[in-house]
């Protein structure tokens, strides 16, 4: 295994990891504020990618306008889903909530395949420049770099949002204790809706970015499943943890795949490595790197 190959693995791992981080961020925002485990996170990503495709390619809208329209679409979708499906589920046991989001994911997936079919679609014209630059002797496509930078910006924006903005503080308060938040004049309902909106938007942007690199097809939702290793590693309710977890999972997945290919002659490790890591983390450090430890008292 050459250093070049290793570097390539690291770079593509970081790029994919940054997308994982974006989706994991969306997942964590919902979990933190509403305690809903969203199994449809990957479908948000997929819907975002397809809607942006529809605007850019099928309607010929310029990219920046299309991005804004996609964000707007994500917001509307999130509000509708939150109001119609998730609101009635407040107070139901965790298993019902898991099941309802799984059902939701099936519905979203089928709508997307009904509208756009199963074929791989490619953004045309490409959103980012196609040239490659050389980093430490390794050729790296510029779109990789753009993708990485944009998701990092996204993560930074939301960390600042949570730390300093009024809505962000209100969301954290709601996450901490809903009743107290309510009595301090925070509308918990609005916070719930807001967290779904942010989550859908962040994942949608992630979808546009990844769709731009790999092309989009109906198996994009697989990204949503990788979110679990990432968030568990980072700690389920930590924004920073989601970002780091996503990057680490992306890296580890690529590196383990590369190592097994060159030394053990074993292919396809990529699909399973994140889950093996997940099980190991759960056994050693169940609340992840930055997660809140749940302390139970009788």
């Amino acid at each position: 295994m050459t250093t070049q190959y290793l570097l390539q693995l690291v770079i593509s791992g970081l790029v994919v990891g940054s997308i994982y981080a974006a989706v994991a961020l969306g997942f964590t925002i919902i979990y933190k504020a509403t305690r809903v485990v969203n199994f449809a996170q990957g479908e948000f990503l997929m819907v975002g990618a397809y809607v942006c495709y529809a605007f850019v390619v099928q309607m010929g809208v310029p990219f920046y306008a299309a991005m804004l329209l996609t964000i707007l679409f994500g917001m509307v979708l999130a509000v509708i889903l939150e109001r119609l499906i998730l609101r009635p589920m407040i107070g139901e046991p965790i298993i019902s909530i898991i099941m309802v989001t799984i059902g939701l994911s099936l519905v979203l997936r089928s709508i997307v395949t009904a509208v756009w079919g199963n074929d791989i679609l490619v953004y045309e014209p490409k959103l980012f420049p196609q040239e490659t630059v050389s980093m430490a002797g390794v050729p790296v496509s510029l779109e990789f770099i753009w993708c990485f930078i944009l998701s990092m910006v996204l993560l930074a924006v939301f960390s600042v949002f949570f730390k300093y903005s009024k809505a962000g503080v209100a969301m954290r308060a709601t996450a901490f204790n809903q009743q107290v938040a309510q009595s301090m004049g925070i509308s918990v309902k609005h916070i719930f809706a807001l967290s779904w909106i942010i989550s859908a938007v962040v994942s949608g942007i992630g979808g546009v970015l990844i769709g731009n690199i790999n092309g989009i097809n109906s198996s994009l939702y697989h990204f949503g499943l990788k979110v679990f290793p990432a968030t568990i590693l980072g700690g389920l309710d930590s924004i920073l943890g989601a970002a780091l977890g996503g990057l680490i999972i992306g890296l580890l997945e690529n590196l383990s795949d590369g190592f097994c290919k060159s030394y053990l002659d074993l292919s396809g490790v990529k699909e399973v490595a994140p889950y093996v890591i997940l099980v190991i983390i759960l056994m050693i450090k169940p609340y992840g790197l930055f997660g809140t430890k749940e302390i139970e008292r009788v």
Partner: protein
Amino acid sequence: MHYCGDFRTSYEKDVEIFQTPFIKVCMGFLMLALLAVPFLLKGEYLWIVLQIVIAVIGAVGLNILTGFTGQISLGQGAFFGVGAYTSAYLTAKMGVSFWVGIPAAGLVTAMAGMVFGVPSLRLKGLYLAIATLASQFILEWIFVRWESVTGGSYGIVVSRPAIGGFVFESDASYYYVVLAFAVVMVLFATNLIRTRTGRAFMAVRDHYISAEIMGISIYKYRLLSFGISSFYAGVAGALFGHALKFVSSEQFNIGVSIVYLAMIIIGGLGSIIGSVFGAIFMILLPKVLSVITEAVAADIPSIAKLAISFEQGVFGLIIVLFLIFEPDGLAHRWKLIKAYWKLYPFSY
């Protein structure tokens, strides 16, 4: 005939599963009806019933784990696979008899379930759900890659069981084999939840700290629950493999796990009869949907493609609607119907 109160005079009467003569007669008729199914239904319909009976075993198993012990499992599909592959490997490649293969499949799956249940010692709720999701993907990966045992993507061809010279080759004869397993296992589950073990499961579910204070070893019972549940999954998976005469990895993907979870939620968590209802509902639902889409597609060919991709969506939508409007499942509705007729016509 209904009694207006409990008139049990002996301990034996008190522990009977079917307590009133009315229930016993009903159960007798149900059993007769089940035995008569192969004479009434043929071809595809019989195959659907066969699938339902196998699904009942799996759903009851999952309900023991999720409904009674409160441990969410998203890996039931993979445990099915472990059972199916074990039995297929033993019977097709090592020449062991089916009648040894099935219990062996159950035991191996129980072992696998307990291994993947180890995280449950420290985790609960959501964390456990995610751990079992990971086990689903890891096992699925093993099914595809461990080619010397699982045959990789080619799968394994298996045969139907035989006793002496008689081979249960037709669906009708194999149905009786499956039915026998199902009846025994459902009765076992019904009895299990009335024993110390079953009550311990429920105590662990309802409040595990209290359970521990009362002297119930939660680790032991959580692992045991994983073991029993996986045993059921293994047997169901093995029976399914022999029914299909072919075992391959696509039959045990995450979709299967989701369908089983949906069965017990729609049927009713913590209810044996609910698992049965759920299994019937979730097996019939896709068949009914595909009949409808075919009919629609035949009338209006232009939307045929659209209708097919909506099938999954409608499936998901029904799960969602069920959870919103009937969160306690079909078992709850069944109870209401029974109560209504018990008091009929004086419902107040």
